[in-house]
């Protein structure tokens, strides 16, 4: 049986795989929570978490409990959700656009978010009433709306949609650069730069709750449409011949991915590479059928991002490297291996 079989040992393999990855994820989250400027033992971490959940009433130092529960755990879980969300969006867009290079930012969302962010940070739009995240979210959706208009509601074919995304990205990147170079001071430019490369610093429980709701709803909608997504294998017209309401599915899924990506970007910056690499890796592990690919993407993306977050904090002592730098540094070699192994056998 190949992993692409949905039945029999195929399903057993997926279940085993997911259990395995979730165990690794739990361990990675605990590790991410233990490591930091003030390092805490794994046992204390576990107890602090179970205390926080109300499962135990162990006696541990309040400072450590607070560091684990209030600061680091929320951060690790947001990282996991962001990784899961980006990987799911990547897989969906690769299927809908029938392009192996598609990733969550292909529809201009991250460029739009950066413009929104600089408008708030540098231009001070909203006069302090608007948070950076709100500005980024608005910018992301403006970019997505522009892409939707340029591609006639995504009805003009995948390549047309990709080109519309490229145009929107260029436009919003240019706007960002323009604002930064003309009116920003050096410190603001650095802030923006840092934010763009992604950071989990400063995320707290409310961020987790919001992201959790968005990612879980997004995953549920995508799973609901997983069979229809498979039908896009041979293109839009072929999907229509198989009875899939192509225009509706595509519009809903573009909107869902834009929503997820915009939420993630506005919270933690535009973290590249996860949404591109993880779907390819997951496809290697569980095959191309979306009912199994999407959960696998979520699980692998979550682990990848938590590990990347750990790496970003330990590579250079006393300093946090932007998470986007780490995902690319780790992701590129990894991707190279996949590319090498899947080269056409000629």
């Amino acid at each position, binding site marked *: 049986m*190949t992993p*692409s*079989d*949905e*039945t029999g040992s195929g399903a057993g393999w997926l279940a085993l795989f997911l259990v395995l990855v979730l165990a690794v994820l739990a361990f990675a989250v605990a590790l991410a929570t233990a490591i930091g400027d003030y390092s805490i033992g794994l046992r204390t971490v576990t107890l602090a978490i179970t205390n926080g959940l109300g499962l135990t009433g162990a006696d541990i130092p309040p400072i450590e409990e607070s560091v684990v529960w209030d600061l680091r755990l929320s951060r690790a879980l947001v990282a996991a959700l962001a990784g899961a969300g980006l990987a799911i969006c990547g897989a969906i867009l690769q299927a809908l656009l*029938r392009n*192996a290079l598609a990733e969550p930012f292909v529809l201009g969302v991250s460029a739009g978010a950066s413009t929104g962010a600089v408008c708030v940070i540098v231009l001070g739009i909203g006069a302090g009433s608007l948070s950076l995240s709100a500005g980024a979210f608005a910018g992301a959706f403006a970019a997505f709306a522009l892409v939707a208009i340029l591609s006639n509601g995504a009805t003009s074919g995948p390549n047309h949609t990709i080109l519309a995304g490229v145009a929107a990205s260029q436009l919003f990147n240019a706007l960002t650069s323009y604002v930064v170079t003309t009116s920003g001071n050096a410190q603001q430019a650095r802030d923006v730069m840092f934010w763009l490369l992604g950071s989990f610093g400063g995320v707290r429980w409310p961020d987790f709750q919001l992201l959790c709701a968005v990612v879980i709803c997004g995953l549920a909608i995508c799973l*609901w*449409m*997983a*069979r*229809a997504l*498979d*039908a896009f*294998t*041979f*293109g839009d*017209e*072929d999907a*229509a*011949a*198989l*009875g*899939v*309401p192509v225009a509706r599915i595509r519009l809903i899924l573009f909107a869902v991915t834009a929503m997820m990506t915009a939420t993630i970007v506005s919270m933690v910056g535009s973290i590249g590479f996860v949404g591109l690499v993880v779907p390819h890796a997951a*496809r290697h592990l569980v*095959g*191309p*059928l979306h009912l199994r690919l999407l959960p696998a993407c979520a699980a692998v993306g979550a682990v990848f991002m938590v590990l990347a977050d750990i790496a970003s904090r330990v590579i250079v002592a006393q300093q946090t490297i932007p998470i986007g730098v780490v995902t690319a540094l780790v992701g590129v070699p990894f991707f190279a291996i996949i590319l090498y192994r*899947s080269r*056409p*056998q000629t």
Partner: protein
Amino acid sequence: MSVVASNLVWGVRRKRIVSDVSLSVAQGETLGLIGPNGSGKSSLLRLLAGLRRPQSGRVEISGQDISQIPRRALARQLAFVQQNAATDTNVSVRDVVRLGRTPHRSALSGWSAVDELAVASALERVDMTDRRAQPWQTLSGGERQRVHIARALAQSPRVMFLDEPTNHLDIHHQIEILRMVRDLDLTSIVALHDLNLAALFCDRIAVLQNGVLVACGRPAEVLTQSLLRDIFRVQAEVNNIDQTGRPHIRFKTG
């Protein structure tokens, strides 16, 4: 199920690609669709399959206007084998044939014994059972074509449209596929280039030229020397050697 098209018109911008085509195919009948390159065969099939909306005219399947039938319900009745369906995804032969079950499955329904049977017998029909685990990318052109046909069969349709299904096939499989289409209890329309195969396997033949239906009838009535000269611009000799009255065409050079 019968297929009836009345006064179909379709085009892009100023250009008419299908002009006022009417035809009807009876339950169980196999209609061959022939015509030079660019005569509108593929476009007509897309209109008939409901993948394009005609500018005017309509298509009925068993008396029901297909524009009124929801996509999924239509796909349970009608399968369409396209001309050059390709993919970059790394799917197996079995994955592709399984796609044919899409219109029969709801979002969360499991894989049933009926689904399994449909896939297995479709693979058997096109002689690809022992290749079911092979990656799609590694198949030859003719094998891909056969897998597409298997996928259409797995759809368990009552009506099947095939756009040049015998391209890339070796002569054995050309004959096998056409024999299968003819013998199945299906109403089918097949676009073909090989006129002798069309004569052998089709109950009737429709001829398109520049989007206009110029002839439609039994092979012996349609495939005449003058039609071949006027439409296909070839000199040919047509013999009715077969006792069944199916014509045989010999092309002449010079």
